[in-house]
């Protein structure tokens, strides 16, 4: 039983990541009608915002220490980060330690900017083009973005640790009165909380602001809103920026969970499409629901007890669930008629 609880907990955490990524994707589908294959790349860029800030904070002065040798036997160049020189070693070190949470502040303007530039410079011209063209151009863009990252950061994963205080794991067992361990890493709990807050914020934004209302109306019936004389274009640009920022933030906080590498976006791309479609195209609650559902089912399928019944089920669980749901519910869990059905 505790094993199942643990996997459900884990599934919630995984699911929150899936939901967060899928949310931005479905926003773009729903509002702009664009199939964005570069969405994974935005997630990746978010993660590299963490890496970049970490690098910026550890920019160092080099001093030569004659007493130590480097691998070639030459005197070792000792690097001292500027922040440590400026704020003293301890404050400096803790600033570096907190680089990932700090990267949230760094990533928001960066991602909004990237989103705006992408929409104005490229996506805008593809609103009325066939989906195939959208796929080709955004896939091309995704490759370019990831190759640019590879050029500057290399292909190897880059460790981006969370702050020291979040090391280790929290044991839920005593809380629940269980005598076994139900340990879960602090940082993953933070990630879960963070995703929940962002998801709630996006919903609140769409629900309670005039801007959100117009966007929701636009998702429901684009032409009518256009006829009302509302400048829907400008709002769509902002919407794209927000979707990019959501994907980026998902990436920023994901960096400590798995060391970022340049192709991590592609790894998530297929999955996020499956999540969005299972949830139903253009449905925000659907994306969130599907994210959690797939996260939990994936976690449960990885249990040895289940794998011993159906060998290799964890290899295909996501796809099996997707197929079953799409066959039972033609437009996913909460999809609307007529969205991306052509």
């Amino acid at each position, binding site marked *: 039983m505790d094993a199942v609880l643990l996997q459900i907990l884990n599934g919630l955490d995984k699911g929150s990541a899936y939901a967060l990524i899928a949310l931005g994707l479905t926003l773009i589908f729903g509002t702009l009608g664009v*199939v964005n294959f570069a969405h994974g790349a935005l997630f990746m860029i978010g993660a590299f915002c963490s890496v970049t800030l970490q690098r910026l904070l550890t920019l160092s002065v080099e001093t030569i220490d004659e007493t130590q040798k480097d691998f070639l036997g030459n005197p070792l160049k000792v690097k001292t980060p500027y922040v440590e020189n400026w704020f003293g070693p301890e404050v400096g070190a803790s600033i570096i330690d907190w680089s990932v949470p700090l990267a949230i502040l760094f990533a928001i303007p960066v991602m909004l900017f990237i989103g705006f530039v992408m929409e104005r410079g*490229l996506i805008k*011209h593809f609103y*009325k*083009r*066939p*989906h*195939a*063209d959208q*796929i*080709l*151009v955004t*896939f*091309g*863009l*995704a*490759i*370019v973005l*990831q*190759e*640019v990252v590879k*050029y500057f950061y290399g292909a190897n994963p880059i460790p981006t640790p969370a702050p020291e205080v979040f090391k280790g794991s929290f044991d839920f067992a005593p809380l629940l009165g269980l005598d076994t361990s139900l340990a879960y890493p602090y940082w993953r709990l933070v990630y879960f909380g963070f995703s929940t807050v962002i998801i709630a914020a996006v919903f609140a934004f769409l629900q309670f602001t005039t801007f959100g209302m117009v966007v929701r109306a636009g998702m429901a019936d684009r032409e009518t809103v256009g006829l009302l004389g509302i400048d829907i274009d400008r709002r769509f640009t902002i919407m794209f920026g927000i979707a990019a920022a959501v994907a980026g933030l998902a990436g920023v906080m994901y960096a400590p969970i798995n060391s970022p590498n340049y192709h991590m976006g*592609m790894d998530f791309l*297929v999955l996020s*499409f*499956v999540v969005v*479609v*299972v949830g139903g*195209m253009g449905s925000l609650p659907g994306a969130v629901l599907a994210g959690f559902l797939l996260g939990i089912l994936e976690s449960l399928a990885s249990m040895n007890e289940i794998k011993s019944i159906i*060998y*290799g089920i964890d*290899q*295909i669980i*996501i*796809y*099996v669930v*997707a*197929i079953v749901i*799409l*066959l039972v519910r*033609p*437009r*996913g869990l909460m999809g609307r008629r007529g969205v*991306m*059905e*052509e």
Partner: protein
Amino acid sequence: MFGLEKRDTLLLGVVILLTLFAPFILNPFPADSGLAQFNAGYPDLMQRFVIFGIFAIGFNILFGLTGYLSFGHAAFLGVGSYSAVWMFKLLSYNVVPALVLAVIMAGLFSALIGFISLRRSGIYFSILTLAFAQMSFNLAYSVLTPITNGETGLQIYTSDPQYLQSVDAPSFPNLFGAAMNSSTTLFFGSWTFTFSVGYYFCAVFLILAFYLAIRIFRSPFGMMLRAVKSNQQRMNYTGLNTRPYTLAAFVISGMYAGLAGGLLAAMDPLAGAERMQWTASGEVVLMTILGGAGTLIGPVLGAGFIKYFENIFAKINDNVLHGWFAFMPDGIEDAMVAIIHPFVGKGWHLTLGLLFMLVVIFLPGGLVEGGQRLGRVFRRKDSNAGSVEADAAKQRNEAAE
């Protein structure tokens, strides 16, 4: 001729000439010149051009005509390859049974997946096909290793039974003795041209596949498929059942993929699981769109384009670059190398990504439209110029407006 209209006959003729003379056309540079790097006329790449051309032609029958965007066609290619290699393992190195089984198995497999996936349309259909293909890949890579040999890829061991293999037959896939890897080289000054049995074998299939595609495009069946893309509602209220039309298109394209997979195995008897991965499915989508979906020759061009970059640009390393610019003063040479360096060798993906974007931005109808624009410049008058592809490209643009 051949039951084709004049302009289609012309197009077929061009394709036949291009494939037959490909060993010359693809090797325009002398072997000892710096530009020899860009020669593509060696058997393996020529075979790949043709095989992926077949794959893309088939995919286009589904996607270009009906508009159903499958993200799982690589699975059928993989099934074709595995079937072919199993025939080599069990019967003999003769390619005929291998190709027959490859096409049949891919046809059955696509009928099954198509039957289920075609219950949905649009992106829901795409995701269903993607899910099936990814499942196939994941299983082939690990769980099904006894059938697929997993990570390494299915290959032929000397211990395999090969019940029908005669002692004097070549121990490489062959057509009644003519081994696919035999070739002969023609030296002409400093040019070399390689004629490979395998290439011409594939080329024959490409020509047949292309001819069949023309027939389908110009048939009432093909017209119905385009009608599916245009307006399914009207189809239904005109007494036409769309499901068997789309399923037939799906299975035909699946069989094309199976043929391509079988040919891949015949040229090189090892079937890797990666050829079923979603990226491989994505590749044929990109080939088709890049060349011009719904046009006849477009997918072949797109396939050639992508394979050329994968195989030629990836091989240009700094050493080669320095060789090209060696005549320049040192500083400029280094600068030139530094400028080009990110786009070639390990950066070939970057070039490919940029080209995808450029083509789709400036040539909305794909490479075929690029060709038409060039043609218009040369012909000035656009009267009969439309050529064979004008219709499809024009339709696309109108639909887009």
